[in-house]
């Protein structure tokens, strides 16, 4: 079975996030680039699936990102992916949800898959809308927020989290699945994995390869970013150390009464 996982490369979420005032895009210089943490859960799910199914199964990582960030993808190979494909092209910069999902779908049609596993969210300002749009462009069912996957004879049975609990849902391959964090903690690359990753292939695709020309980048997008600014700062309020618990409770009540919240 061919398992494909999409990953996004993002500035380290623990670092400070900046947007370039001129280009209105994330500043990537001076900040370490890492695999979007949510996508590591998707990769973990893929690796577990491969281990369970065995046989001829492969895990391929797909990433749309500038070629200069290529080495940041090695961690996915070190974790156990068999190979990676990168869609890189300067004309992709500034693509919105529609343009990104559309370009990704063209590349993924070339790569081919039985199951496509996508991280639940991205950490760098995405909208959560890409997986759904991607599934539509690929013409496959879309199963989101999945915490458990079982596959037998091309039939898929999953547990997915909902706002109020969970659901068991069944369907058939090929399909797109997005993962919940409860699918399992991502593994750490082993030393052997890290050494092996250096020899694994990262294939490159360009916009010309996928035939997307005028549907990518800012010009191919359906939205236009006008401006951005930090919100008004939320300053520190009062810090009170009361004499005893009753005084603490009274302080809170008085504060809430003053704000007309009680």
């Amino acid at each position, binding site marked *: 079975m061919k398992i494909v996982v999409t990953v996004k490369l993002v500035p380290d979420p623990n670092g400070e*996030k900046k947007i370039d005032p001129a280009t209105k895009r994330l500043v990537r210089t001076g900040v370490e680039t890492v695999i979007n943490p949510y996508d590591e859960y998707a990769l973990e799910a893929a690796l577990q699936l491969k281990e369970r199914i065995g046989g001829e199964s492969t895990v391929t990582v797909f990433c749309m990102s500038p070629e200069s960030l290529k080495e940041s993808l090695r961690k996915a190979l070190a974790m156990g992916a068999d190979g990676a494909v990168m869609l890189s092209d300067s004309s992709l910069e500034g693509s*919105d*949800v*529609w343009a990104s999902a*559309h370009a990704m779908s063209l590349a993924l049609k070339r790569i081919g898959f039985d199951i496509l596993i996508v991280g639940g969210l991205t950490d760098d*300002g995405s*909208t959560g*809308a890409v997986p*759904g*749009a*991607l*599934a*539509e*462009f690929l013409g496959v*069912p*879309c*199963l*989101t*927020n999945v915490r458990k996957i079982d596959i037998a004879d091309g039939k898929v*049975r999953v547990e997915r*989290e*909902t*706002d*109020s*609990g*969970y*659901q*068991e*849902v069944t369907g058939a391959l090929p*399909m797109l699945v997005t993962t919940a*964090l*409860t699918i399992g903690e991502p593994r750490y690359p082993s030393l052997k994995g890290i050494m092996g990753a250096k020899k694994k292939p990262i294939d490159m695709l360009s916009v010309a390869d996928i035939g997307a020309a005028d549907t990518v980048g800012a010009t191919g*997008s*359906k*939205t*236009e*970013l*006008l*401006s*951005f*600014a*930090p919100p008004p700062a939320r300053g*520190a*309020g*009062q*810090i*009170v*150390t*009361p004499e005893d*618990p*009753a005084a*603490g*409770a*009274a302080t*809170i*009540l008085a*504060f*809430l009464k003053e*704000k007309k919240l*009680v």
Partner: protein
Amino acid sequence: MKNVIVYVEQKKGATRKVTFEMLTEARKIADALGGRAVAVVLGAGAAAVAEQAKNYPIDAVQVVEDSAVDTFLLDPIVHYLEATAKSVGPALLLIPNTLSGRDLAGRLVARLNAGIAADVTEIAVTNGRVECVSPKLGGALVTHCVLRAGDYGIATIRPGAFAAVPGGSGAAIERHDAQGASYPLTIERDVEEGSGEMALEEAPVVIAGGRGMGGAEPFTTLLKPLADAFGGAVGASRAAADAGWVSYSLQIGQTGKTVSPPLYIAVGISGAIQHKVGMRASGTIVAINKDASAPIAEFADLTVVGDAFAIVPELTKLVTAAKQ
């Protein structure tokens, strides 16, 4: 874009407050664009919700009581919304920014070749162009974005960002027949956990517990009585959910829910960035923490330093008395 279509999320005849917020805002946008405002309600119980929706200032409510909406995952909803969009004509679609709303919006981006603005807190129409304001990067930035003048645009709406004001002269209810179609993903079981509780995103007061709770029990014995005294709901930090003390459905933060109640009380929560981004938009934030140097003290309006296990029961008594 000329018209406005509101997707009314509902289950068994119950909907969320964000529905009425969207119905109110839809009228303003439709008037500015010179078009109609239409709501769509689907699945078992849709007729009951339509009766509530028609009290808001929209032109029409489309109702399809198709049982497929409850037996197949999302695809019937995508189908009906696409059909409505095609019949109504060029439109802005308002969809709640909830778990399933986000899934739905993504699907419609491709079906309708639409631009999308996500987690929108303000909408303005300027010279016929729809401009949306959205907080990004966990609220670190606020973006203004234009939906290009294609046929369709989508905005997912943050619950609690707009006011809900009934009005209008009673929208026309249009019933449509179910398609009777089959779809690829079958819901075999739908399990409700913690049913009967108020939805966290809708609660006027949220009492959230973190690592300082030390176990599952204080969530029911300490925090729940305080939440009940306020008529609010209990939430949790990621640390508490990861420890298995509460269900992930109560988790507030980057990887959980985003809430913005008028009052947020954080009990034994340090206020790491992961939690902060899920609640920083709350009206008033009160922290009870034994550590005065916890990050939460840097953005809470009031931080009381002390033992939460002693302070919370006292506060519950005072609030209960004050409410009588």
